[in-house]
């Protein structure tokens, strides 16, 4: 290495070795991360896209079949069922998550109530709890004969509801309840941090101008919190498409989403094609890429929607 330093090379055209040597410290720092990153993250992403155009069982030769996987996918009623279930669960669950999160954060931000940290801690507890354990608990609570929820309903003279059985349509309710139960506190904590980042002067000015609470929420808070709400929406959208554990355990480890595919989500559908259940690796890659595209599409749309109106508003609503 030292010899090349004295050679006649022009300084602009250094050899690769020379560059690596001169910056060896920096490269040494990023190397462990980047090697793993390239091998285990970037390569699978790219390879997955390529694989989605092949037919492959994981062992024999790969056959290039063009977009046939995507075609088959769109013609599979089960895929549409899974997509429908996933979107239904996700969209309905976002109502309590968003509204509940905002309302709770607003209440804690009013300074009328004490014990902010206690409530925050309680609401956040589901976030650190294993999804399998949560599902185990809820499946007993949603039980037909002995569940607490049916007992509660019976106090009001309601007949018991077969949440987890029956024709499989009500199991989505249980999944929605668990999904909202888990995410509401997380959203609330983020919204609250955002609200606390907004200067008190704004509220005071608003109240002097005679603004009601509703005005404050819709005309001041929500516009200012837009970037944060956007962030939580994108995260829970990703959570929605990755929804697997809850419906899977709730249906007793069913790879078809239980009765009438009532709880079949896209993630269960995907993993059931490969590697569990089947070995249609090419097809499963196509499914994975369709899910990926949907996530990117929804995120981009959300970004567009929030950017559209008053561009100046976004700057205030940041944490810290």
């Amino acid at each position, binding site marked *: 290495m030292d010899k090349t330093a004295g050679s006649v090379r022009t300084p602009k055209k250094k050899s690769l070795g020379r560059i690596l040597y001169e910056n060896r410290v920096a490269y040494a720092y990023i190397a*462990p991360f980047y090697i793993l990153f390239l091998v285990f993250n970037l390569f699978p992403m790219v390879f997955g896209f390529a694989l989605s155009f092949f037919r492959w069982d994981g062992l024999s030769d790969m056959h290039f079949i063009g977009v046939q996987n995507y075609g088959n996918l769109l013609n599979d009623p089960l895929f549409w069922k899974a997509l429908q279930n996933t979107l239904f669960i996700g969209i309905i669950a976002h109502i309590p998550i968003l509204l509940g999160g905002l309302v709770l954060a607003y209440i*804690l931000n009013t300074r009328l109530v004490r014990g902010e940290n206690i409530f925050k801690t309680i609401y956040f507890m589901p976030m650190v709890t294993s999804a399998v354990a949560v599902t185990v608990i809820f499946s007993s609570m949603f039980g037909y004969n002995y569940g607490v929820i049916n007992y509660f309903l019976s106090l009001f003279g309601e007949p018991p509801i077969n949440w987890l059985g029956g024709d499989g349509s009500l199991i989505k309710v249980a999944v929605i309840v668990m999904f909202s139960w888990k995410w509401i506190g997380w959203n609330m904590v983020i919204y609250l941090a955002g609200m606390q980042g907004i200067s008190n002067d704004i509220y005071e000015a608003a109240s002097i101008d005679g603004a009601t609470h509703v005005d404050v929420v819709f005309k001041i808070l929500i516009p200012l919190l837009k970037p944060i709400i956007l962030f939580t929406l994108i995260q829970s959208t990703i959570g929605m498409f*990755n929804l697997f554990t809850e419906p899977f355990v709730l249906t007793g480890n069913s790879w078809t989403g239980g009765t009438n595919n009532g709880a079949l989500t896209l993630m269960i559908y995907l993993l059931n094609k490969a590697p569990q259940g089947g070995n249609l690796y090419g097809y499963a890659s196509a499914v994975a890429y369709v899910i990926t595209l949907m996530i990117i599409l929804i995120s981009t749309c959300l970004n567009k929607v929030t950017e559209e109106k008053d561009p100046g508003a976004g700057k205030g609503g940041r944490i810290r």
Partner: protein
Amino acid sequence: MKTLLLLIAGFFLVLFILSRLGEGGKKAALYLVLIAVAFIMLFPFYEMFVMSTLKTNEIYSFPPRLWFGSNLMKNFENMNKSVNLLRAFQNSCTVTISYVVLALLFCSMGGYAFSIYDFPGKKALFRILLATMMVPATAGMIPWYIMMSKIGWISDRTPAGFLALIIPGCANAFGVFWMRQYCQNNVPKSLMEAARIDGCSEWTIFFRIIAPILLPAYASLGIMNFVNQWNEFTQALLVLKRQKFYTLPLLLKTMVGDRGTDYGALMLASTCAVLPLLIFFLCASKYFMSGLTAGAIKE
């Protein structure tokens, strides 16, 4: 359904009336909402604790028992007969702790280099990183599985599946990105120049001077990674092929599918799986919240 709707309507009516009764009433209404939600959040945990102390026939009774029973020890025995919880706990610890340590080390080294050093290719490398952050991990899931099985990390004889859970996840693009932000805002370049003049080697600078500055970032990112890995289910389900190597969530799953689920033992096992992290969380909830909401910060 009618009575139930009436009840909900009644709840809102009470809130409305209270809010009209001046400052005190308003306060009461707000507390009522907060406590109602807190009840919903806590009740499932309470149910879990209660059921882990009940006999099977007490669990299968109507109306459901809502107070603790006396069958805790028996449930414990039954649980130990059917599964080895301690081993699953050890497996979970092994996977989670090695994952967190490696991820923190690699991510902070990467983030530090990106923020402090200038080197050829830095911009391009960082752009690749940012671009992959936009792509959800789902995209690489199937090839990840194929890779793991081809290198032999999916095995029913050795705990190689642990490696499949630990190593690929270490290269967490968000972690590097986040560490870089933190370094840029908190590590003064003058500090390192001073250290260099004093004759510190680059490694000494990193481990002795930079790492202590990064402690808050380590705490947040570490907690985030810890919670995610501790509760990881989907990946573990795919790569861990033998009960001996199961982590806690997988072990719980095996107890569900069995014929004639022993609910008492199952609930006790759930309690054991959930409680350590929950206690840890209650002691340091502030750090957990900032860690798990880390990405929301926009500078």
